[in-house]
């Protein structure tokens, strides 16, 4: 290890995307972090070292480089979740300061917890509030996160100052942001029966007592021991950031300037589902550029967007898995159907061949009969020619005529059989063609499903 402590060094700005897949992944990851540049860069450097060291190890194990990179990145887990984990630590840390301050306050911790209750549930990170509170206590001490007293009737300024004093915190109220709601330090507020209530409920009661809701609600931010209070709209304005979200799993695009119907649907859905007021009031904007969803919005909204995209990706994966299953099922059904048709065609071909054999046998019999009759005919002709007795000659003639008629009859039957055999042979040839086609289809299907 070098002795140079680089804590004080200048941190390089976020690296631009390159063709290096690790660098590309890190670009996406740092965009999701939404932390100050220096902090993001240090996390990026550490994860880059992890990824490249892991890739080196996997290459030694015999993997190809693309495989090694893919495995190393996959092992890190879902990108958005990893970013949330880092952000959760940061938020957690900041909340701990406020909580510990409260512990040493003479007025007790519960009132300060109510200040923490003003913190938006989603603006920093999706952390369970009760877990934060419990974790903030020294070992062996726990409380249930409830206020231990009621808040008396008075002015809003006094009530907020009392909350800050209770946490030994300095207070700064952005009164200008509250003016549009008709609120000021002297605004009267009725008593809040807060004792025994969770801080989130107390926050709701205070906002309710002031008739505030949505973007007008009082909210707070804590930095060290400074508590800032203002309207939600105010904090949305000052905390607006821009993040490029990767939506390549949701939108097919070949060009960064392509705007597809899928992208349009994504944008419309997002604006309808997530904080519609933010977009309607110009506090945020959405642009889709190919596989990049550029969002300018307050941090709390960005977190919701990340969750929304993650949910859509999960749904998309479920659909793709379902489609793949259906395709497999369809292919198996088609294969079974083709095999049944092949079997039927073979049976049909064999039946035609049997029928042909029967016809051929009949034809053979008729041919024998015909040739016998023809021989008989020749004998009768000779007998007739040689006969001198008129009476007998007349009998020979009669026999000759009968034999001739039989010969004509046999010949007609032979011709008919010939025609039937010809038709049968054509049918067999057609059947053979059909059979060859089906055999090829079944064989191809088997190879496809085997891939």
């Amino acid at each position, binding site marked *: 290890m*070098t002795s140079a402590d680089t804590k004080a060094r200048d941190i390089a700005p976020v690296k631009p995307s390159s063709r290096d897949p690790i660098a590309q992944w890190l670009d996406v990851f740092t965009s999701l972090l939404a932390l100050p540049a220096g902090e993001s860069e240090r996390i990026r450097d550490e994860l880059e070292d992890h990824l490249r060291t892991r890739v080196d190890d996997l290459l030694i194990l015999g993997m190809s480089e693309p495989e090694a990179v893919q495995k190393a990145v996959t*092992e890190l887990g879902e990108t958005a979740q990893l970013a949330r984990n880092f952000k959760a*630590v*940061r938020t957690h840390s900041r909340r701990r300061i406020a909580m510990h301050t409260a512990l040493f306050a003479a007025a007790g911790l519960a009132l300060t917890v109510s200040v923490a209750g003003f913190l938006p549930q989603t603006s920093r990170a999706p952390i369970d509030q009760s877990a934060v509170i419990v974790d903030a206590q020294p070992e062996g001490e726990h409380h249930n996160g409830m206020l231990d007293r009621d808040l008396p009737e008075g002015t809003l300024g006094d009530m907020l100052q009392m909350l800050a004093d209770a946490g030994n915190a300095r207070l700064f109220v952005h009164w200008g942001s509250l003016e549009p709601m008709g609120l000021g330090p002297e605004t009267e507020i009725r008593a809040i029966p807060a004792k025994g209530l969770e801080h989130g409920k107390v926050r709701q009661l205070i906002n309710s007592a002031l008739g505030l809701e949505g973007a007008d609600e009082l909210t707070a931010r804590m930095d060290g021991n400074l508590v800032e209070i203002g309207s939600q709209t105010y904090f949305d304005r000052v905390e607006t950031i821009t993040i490029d979200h990767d939506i390549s799993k949701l939108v097919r695009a070949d060009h960064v300037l392509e705007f597809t119907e899928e992208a349009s649907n994504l944008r419309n859905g997002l604006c309808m589902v997530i904080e519609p007021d933010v977009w309607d009031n110009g506090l945020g904007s959405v642009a889709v550029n190919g596989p990049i969803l550029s969002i300018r919005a307050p941090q709390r909204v960005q977190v919701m967007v990340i969750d929304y995209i993650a949910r859509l990706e999960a749904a998309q994966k479920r659909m793709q898995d379902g489609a793949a299953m259906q395709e497999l099922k369809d292919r198996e059904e088609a294969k079974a159907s083709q095999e049944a048709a092949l079997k039927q065609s073979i049976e049909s071909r064999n039946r035609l061949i049997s029928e042909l054999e029967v016809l051929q046998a009949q034809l053979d019999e008729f041919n024998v009969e015909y040739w016998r009759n023809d021989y008989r005919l020749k004998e009768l002709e000779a007998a007739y020619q040689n006969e001198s007795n008129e009476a007998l000659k007349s009998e020979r003639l009669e026999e000759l005529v009968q034999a001739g008629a039989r010969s004509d009859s046999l010949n007609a039957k032979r011709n008919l059989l010939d025609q039937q055999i010809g038709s049968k042979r054509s049918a067999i040839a057609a059947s053979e063609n059909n059979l060859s086609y089906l055999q090829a289809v079944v064989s191809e299907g088997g190879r496809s499903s085997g891939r």
Partner: protein
Amino acid sequence: MSAKESAPQLTQDQTEMIVLSVLSEGPSYGYAISKQIAARSEETFRVGASQLYPLLTKLEKQGLVSTDWEEIKSASAEPEAPGRKRKWYRLSPKGERRLESRIAAHQRFTAIMNSFIAGPSGAAS
């Protein structure tokens, strides 16, 4: 069933104790810490990057570890080309105290559990 298949889930406190314990043997960096945990537990415990790095960040913020950066250059790199940066963690005095506290709590817990396993007579060792 293999050890990997039946891998128990570490609690956050247990993970913290293990990481601090690894660092008590000397400075280390994230990837090496995760490999050491996997190796020493015979692959039973796997602390993934998504858990380890946020935890290390938390430990740093709490002053339980101090950090230094090292520049890593590959043998094939140009001499003037910047290398990648590696973050080293070192247990701080506060971290040592936290580790002792965690170990003591763990030993108390284990002793209590053993007393149940041993039965009322305490015959089992």
